[in-house]
């Protein structure tokens, strides 16, 4: 198409082309190409999933009750959310209602996953986009201690000696040449603006998070049995409850184990309040001061989620993160979303390496087709097995293009927070906490931290701060905080329900396929850590006839559609200036802010070679 206008962006692919392949520190395999103008500002963006997944076809003909175990293997990092979505889809198809304990236990597991995934993403996959590890070696431990006490006075681990020890350990590690997790950094690039002390503080918290997360996942072991892949069950949860039981191996869940869960929830709440939220707010404050408010992309206009966390099981109106769709940045109007409506969620493939009979139309996932068709456009540079530059006018990705009523949408914690904030402003009493969190964050970024750190105050509104790369990272932290708080409510409700005499955890009335209709279809949705996740299933004669997953990274990483509309990754990169195009720090920072998980949006296998990103400027 050459130069054209879409969704308010002027797409221009005439400048220098920069190819980043693979985009590292993500799950799965992804490539990104951009064109920059003479000032090194991004004027065209092309994101592509470079692997075909084949998962949906693996499921055809299999037992629907086993599907969760297969989908749990789609991806290494969000095992639980695929499994949960799958059992929900099957239960929806077969009309199974789960017991209240099962609902609450699943909520606790899902929210633990959110907390775990968000914290791990921030400290292990994303922090290095903001934090210069090598600069941390230059920090003054005493000043680091002062900074720690300024941004988070209640965090106990803040002595100069503590930071000095960590710094020495880091020094030893870097000097031994084993940069390990810190390989592939563009250390010293001008795009890093934190002072050495903030860098050391963040690296220290990276190690603290690592220590805590291993305790948190034990919540999954308690309710899900096995570790690291938890067990799920169509009809409920695969654990029995006997509050006075002895807790021997294989015995039902008892009070001792439930107490362990409560202790972990309280630990998460404390970690969020003392470490995770202050770190994100401090980094956000400093980068915002440096003028870095890029990366909003589609979140400034179109956001989407199915809605989640019902306070009352089965009552959508009580969702604590309510869903919907917002178009054109109009936060005053929230449009209702229905995953069953054939006119709403549709997947297009005219720029994806799949084949439809009629590619001018999208298909609703119940009628979805996943048939690979790897063809390249005439303007592709290179060969079929070694592409130098893609032709984005043709098919160019293994990711399909999901659209909501034809619109490209962003999904994820930021979308959920924009929706939650908009609902709260309209008076929804179930999500007022979202409004509080957003407003307090804005106050801290605009005023509290600038004052404490000796910087000028600002007056950005929520609508200016949220739809940015910083906002995306902040929303993820706020969601972790909110989930941990909601989980404590779930936990208390679970204990009260058990103490009232209800110990049911599974409804197995429809376990036997003889009780099923000849044909059935269902949908399950989950607020996965990366955004709106849906599985659509058709069951025929007791077997899976069709299975389609529309995963968050499919929404965000989607290629162009029939109208030439770009996806959320692509939009987020547009108009961002790069300090040095040979070192794509800004591209990685913004793409990582989505927590891309290509393992499930596409699949798999990579070529030989070191995991060193190749950056080619053409």
């Amino acid at each position, binding site marked *: 198409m050459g130069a054209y206008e879409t969704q308010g962006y002027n797409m221009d692919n005439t400048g220098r082309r920069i190819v980043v392949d693979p985009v590292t520190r993500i799950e799965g395999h992804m490539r990104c190409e951009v064109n920059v103008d003479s000032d090194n500002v991004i004027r065209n963006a092309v994101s592509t999933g470079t692997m075909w997944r084949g998962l949906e076809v693996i499921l055809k*003909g299999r037992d629907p009750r086993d599907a969760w175990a297969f989908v749990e293997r789609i991806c290494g990092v969000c095992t639980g959310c695929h499994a949960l979505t799958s059992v929900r889809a099957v239960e929806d198809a077969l009309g199974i209602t789960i017991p209240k304990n099962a609902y609450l236990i699943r909520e606790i597991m899902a929210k633990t996953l959110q907390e775990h995934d968000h914290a791990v993403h921030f400290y292990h996959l994303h922090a290095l986009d903001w934090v210069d590890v090598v600069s941390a070696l230059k920090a003054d431990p005493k000043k680091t201690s002062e900074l720690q006490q300024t941004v988070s006075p209640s965090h106990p681990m803040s002595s100069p000696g503590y930071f000095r020890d960590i710094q020495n350990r880091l020094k030893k*590690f870097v000097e031994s040449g084993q940069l*390990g997790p810190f390989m592939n950094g563009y250390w010293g690039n001008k795009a890093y603006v934190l002072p050495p002390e903030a860098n050391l503080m963040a690296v220290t918290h990276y190690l603290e998070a690592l220590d805590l997360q291993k305790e948190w996942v034990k919540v999954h072991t308690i309710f899900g049995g096995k570790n690291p892949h938890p067990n799920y069950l169509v009809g409920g949860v*695969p654990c029995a409850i006997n509050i006075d039981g002895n807790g021997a191996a294989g015995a*039902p869940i008892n009070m001792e184990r439930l107490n362990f869960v409560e202790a972990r929830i309280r630990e998460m709440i404390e970690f969020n309040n003392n470490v995770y939220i202050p770190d994100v707010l401090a980094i956000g404050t400093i980068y915002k001061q440096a003028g870095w408010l890029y990366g909003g992309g589609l979140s400034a206009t179109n956001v989407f989620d199915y809605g989640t966390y019902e306070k009352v099981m089965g009552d959508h109106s009580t969702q604590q993160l309510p869903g919907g769709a917002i178009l054109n940045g109009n936060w005053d109007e929230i449009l209702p979303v229905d995953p069953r409506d054939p006119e709403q969620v549709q997947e297009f493939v005219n720029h994806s390496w799949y084949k439809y009979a009629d590619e001018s139309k999208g298909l609703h996932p119940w009628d979805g087709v996943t*048939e690979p068709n790897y063809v390249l456009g005439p303007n592709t540079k290179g060969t079929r097995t070694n592409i130098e530059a893609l032709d984005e006018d043709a098919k160019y990705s293994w990711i399909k293009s999901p659209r909501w009523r034809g619109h490209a949408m962003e999904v994820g914690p930021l979308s959920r927070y924009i929706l939650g904030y908009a609902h709260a402003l309209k008076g929804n009493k179930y999500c007022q906490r979202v409004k509080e969190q957003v407003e307090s964050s804005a106050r801290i970024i605009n005023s509290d931290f600038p004052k404490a750190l000796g910087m000028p105050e600002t007056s950005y509104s929520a609508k200016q701060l949220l739809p940015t790369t910083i906002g995306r990272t902040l929303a993820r932290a706020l969601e972790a905080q909110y989930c941990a708080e909601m989980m404590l409510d779930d936990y208390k409700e679970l204990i009260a329900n058990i103490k009232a005499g209800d110990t049911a955890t599974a409804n197995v009335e429809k376990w036997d396929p003889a009780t099923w209709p000849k044909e059935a279809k269902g949908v399950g949705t989950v607020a996965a850590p990366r955004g709106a996740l849906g599985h659509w299933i058709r069951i025929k004669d007791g077997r899976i006839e069709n299975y389609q997953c529309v995963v968050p990274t499919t929404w965000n990483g989607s290629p162009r559609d029939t109208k030439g509309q770009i996806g959320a990754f692509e939009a987020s990169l547009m108009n961002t200036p790069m300090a040095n195009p040979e070192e794509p720090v800004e591209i990685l920072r913004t793409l990582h802010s989505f927590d891309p998980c290509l393992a499930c949006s596409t699949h798999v296998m990579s070529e030989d070679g070191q995991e060193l990103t190749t950056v080619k400027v053409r």
Partner: protein
Amino acid sequence: MNTTPSATACHQGGDSIETIVVLGIGNVLWADEGFGVRCVEALQQRYEFAPHVQLIDGGTQGLYLIQHVQAASKLLIFDAIDYGLAPGTLKRVENDDVPRFMGAKKMSLHQTGFQEVLMLALLTEQYPSQVLLVGCQPEELEDYGGSLRPVVRAAMEHALAQGVDALARWGAAPVQRSRPLTDCESVTFSELDLARYESQRPPEELACRVGDERFFPPAGDGA
């Protein structure tokens, strides 16, 4: 056939000081890529071990396996790795060579992840005193929904023998299993059990099995 749902969750004991961890890595859904997990599955079906031995179906969990590495005083890893050898060839790699080796060539998602996991464990100064990697050269990965190829399945027997031998030296006290393995004790999933996985596979005309040619160019394709 699907049996009735298991009514109880399974719980493992806490980490003892001298924990021996046996980790199977890989994805059972892509043919020989499932080698590591299938090894752990077979090992547990055939043997019983001392209480301080933990078997883990690590899947492709990458970073999320770090606590198992940190908890291990001795670590045995089964994995499919591309050494550029003949399919089914086993290779033992020990101790300091393991991280380097797992990073030298990457084949699938989990390997890059796993090298990082080992490095991170080192940074936290919680690293096993002994590490043994028993790797197998895969024949086929581009077969979605497929199972181990015969040559890899045969190699699995030798891999298990090597693993059991090392475990015996490490004091894991392996003995032939006398009591049947319950669903609850099993570290792998009955839903993905090898026999069930293979026998319930849909026919090829129903479920496309091929992958992306750029990563599997046919032999002789110089493109």
